[in-house]
């Protein structure tokens, strides 16, 4: 987990919680608006029906008496209207041509054209809702339309709409509060392992790079922990590599440097020029071998460092072999020795660090040139799902007892003499280990063969 020192670190729990709140708030507003609309619609329908009922009641009560409509106004109509107990009412009955028959007052209130049954209007300046019902008479003494208009102010409708909305909203508001509380608890319990992880890390001894105890962590955090454990492993390896390098260097360099100093002192005191020249020759040999040793030490450290840190790329092993031969290092080590290439037609792709593999190949070649017999063949081939880079000479190879120990640091073969540091094969082994491969040494009919076997990557995209 990369913790950046941001100027103002935000709380993850706070963020999630505010997101939850925002969602709830938006949802709440939407739901409120929709319940208000629904409530208004429901109240309008309910009270429109009451209006219609009252108007129909009145229309039913109209009789024709002496050629005139007579309204025996039913109290039931008004009791119906009293379902809206605090609303003022209006009613008017009109004959053909809008002639006022009876009603509360003669103020004409008529629906706008085209005529809907229900319409909005005003009663003494207060918004009101009206309904018009028409009854058609075809009597001997009277024929024509008699219209009944009944209206009512809107108090009860508003109260009902509000009531419906509150009825819907109050439980939802409670549910919202419960959701927030539950979200808060859930977030807290989700974040708690993070805190435990942080505490584990902060309590840890700085030199302690052992993996953290897994278990009890959610999958997402286990991933983080795994990454951290890997990181610590790498760190551990690198630190131990550094430690090894330091101790190797100390161990390996002390003796030759002391020897060189001693020889140099001897030379200073040697009066005989001939003997001094010989001694100088030996001194030169020693410094050369010291150089080679330093070279290998650094090369090994570099390889070990790179195997952990350098990105792995796919490359063709044949190119490694080709580069090696083209650098013509062998001309320096063993002038005149014959080095041949044995490469196949198909590319042999591995997933590794090209430099490290190149170093390993160089060390194999150097060993073959130093300890084996020319001609030396460098080959690349595929065996099953392994990619093999091998170096073969025509010599017998090391004796089996020796071969057992070869590859460990500073194990030198009898023929190494003072020249070898014993680091060459150890580099090859390190590279093989780092990229999941191995080192094979076999005696073939043609001679001794040392091979670096790496898992091959037949599909380019395979990891």
């Amino acid at each position, binding site marked *: 987990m990369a913790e950046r020192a941001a100027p103002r670190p935000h709380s993850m729990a706070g963020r999630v919680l505010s997101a939850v709140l925002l969602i709830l708030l938006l949802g709440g507003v939407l739901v409120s608006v929709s319940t208000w609309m629904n409530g208004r619609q429901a109240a309008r329908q309910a009270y429109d029906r009451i209006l219609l009922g009252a108007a129909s009641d009145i229309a039913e009560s109209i009789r024709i008496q002496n050629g005139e409509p007579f309204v*025996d*106004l039913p109290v039931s109509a008004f009791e119906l209207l009293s379902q809206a107990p*605090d609303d*003022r*009412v209006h009613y008017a009955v009109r004959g053909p041509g809008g002639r006022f028959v*009876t009603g509360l007052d003669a103020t004409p209130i008529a629906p706008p054209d085209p005529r809907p049954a229900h319409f909005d209007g005003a009663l003494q300046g207060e918004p009101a809702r009206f309904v018009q019902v028409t009854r058609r008479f075809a009597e001997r003494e009277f024929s024509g339309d008699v219209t009944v208009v009944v209206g009512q102010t809107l108090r009860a409708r508003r109260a009902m709409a509000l009531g419906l909305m509150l009825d819907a909203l109050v439980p939802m508001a409670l549910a919202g509060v419960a959701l927030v509380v539950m979200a808060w608890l859930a977030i807290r319990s989700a974040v708690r392992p993070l805190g435990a992880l942080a505490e584990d890390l902060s309590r840890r001894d700085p030199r302690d790079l052992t993996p953290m105890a897994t278990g009890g962590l959610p999958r997402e955090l286990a991933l983080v922990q795994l990454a951290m454990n890997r990181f610590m492993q790498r760190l551990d390896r690198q630190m131990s590599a550094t430690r090894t390098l330091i101790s190797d260097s100390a161990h390996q360099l002390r003796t030759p440097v002391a020897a060189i100093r001693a020889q140099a002192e001897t030379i200073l005191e040697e009066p005989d020029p001939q003997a001094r020249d010989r001694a100088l020759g030996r001194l030169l040999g020693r410094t050369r071998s010291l150089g080679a040793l330093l070279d290998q030490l650094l090369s090994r450290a570099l390889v070990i460092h790179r195997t952990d840190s350098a990105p792995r790329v796919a490359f063709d092993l044949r190119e490694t072999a080709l580069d090696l031969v083209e650098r013509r290092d062998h001309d320096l080590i063993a002038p005149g020795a014959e080095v041949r290439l044995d490469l196949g037609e198909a590319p042999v792709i591995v997933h590794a660090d090209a430099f490290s593999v190149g170093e390993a190949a160089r060390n194999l070649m150097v060993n073959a040139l130093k300890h084996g017999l020319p001609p030396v063949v460098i080959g690349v081939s595929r065996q099953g799902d392994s990619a093999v880079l091998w170096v073969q000479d025509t010599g017998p190879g090391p004796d089996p007892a020796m071969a057992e120990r070869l590859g460990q640091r500073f194990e030198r073969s009898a023929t190494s003499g003072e020249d070898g540091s014993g680091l060459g094969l150890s580099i090859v082994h390190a590279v093989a280990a780092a990229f999941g491969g191995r080192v094979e040494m076999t005696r073939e009919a043609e001679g001794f063969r040392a091979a670096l076997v790496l898992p091959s990557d037949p599909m380019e995209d395979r990891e």
Partner: protein
Amino acid sequence: MRAMALRLALALIALLPGAAPAQEAVASFGAGATRMVLRSTTDIAIIAPVIERFVERNPDLSVSYEQWGSNDLFDDSRAACDGRRAPADAVFSSAAHQMVWLVNAACAQSHVSAATGALPPTRRWRDELWGITEEPAAIVYNTAAFAGQDVPHDRFALLDLMRADPDLLRGRIATYDIAASGLGYLFAHADSLEATTFGAMLEAFARVGAVATCCSAEIIEGVAEGRFLIAYNVLGSYVANRQSQAVGIILPEDYTLVLSRSYMIPRGAAHPEAARRLLDFLLSDEAQRILERIGLLLPRDGAETGLLPSAPRAIALAPPLLVALDGHARRRLFGLWEDAFRPAQLP
């Protein structure tokens, strides 16, 4: 002579819209700087103790109490609502249907207080109209005439009495003239809705030559003097107020209409705040106790009135009362009424 009286009353009604309606009596209470005008149908003598107590408690107010006939007061209030006349600060009328009409026509302003909130729904509408009193419509009788006899305790008994002995009661049953009194009309309207006995009553009234006259005080006076033996649908409160041994009171057991005098604050009132204070006072425990004492409020204890639980029928302050003022409904009721009272008035 009675026919003359009725015709005269009808003629007066017909003339009234043109004539300037006038109050019957005026009284002034208190000496406070703010003078509120209260127009009421209640007799000054009856209501005086309550108003006196009010101005006592509110020394900054004085009340100009105008006593009106209910129909005149209705016309006045309508005119005030249309802006043709200066409105009163409060209107207090027994004609509940007229008050409902005024509130329905948006002539009132609202007031909400703890006192108004405590009123039952039948005594409150839109927080613009409040029923202050509870007064039963009673049957009143001359105690001397019925000495030793069973008095009719419900309408059926009264009907039986009128059928059994029409000569005894001929011309000696009185009731409100519905044309002259808004209250009388309201009772008749409520009766016509309440039960089928109404038709039978009118028919019986016609048979015995009942007298329709005005008003409560005069009718009770007549009963006390023995000119009338029975009066139907008289406000019980007026009888209770008389405290007379000569007059007996029956709350009919089949059903008893209970009227609530209602109080309204006109929209354009000059002193609405004073009117609100008066309203809250009228609904206060103190004023309600006074009202109970002077007979304007049924005692809380039902046992005292001898009414069955189902008998009281409150005339609710609500839109159905608008029917009472409908032109056709009036025409129909007046038609029935005149049919009932005309033949009896022929010699």
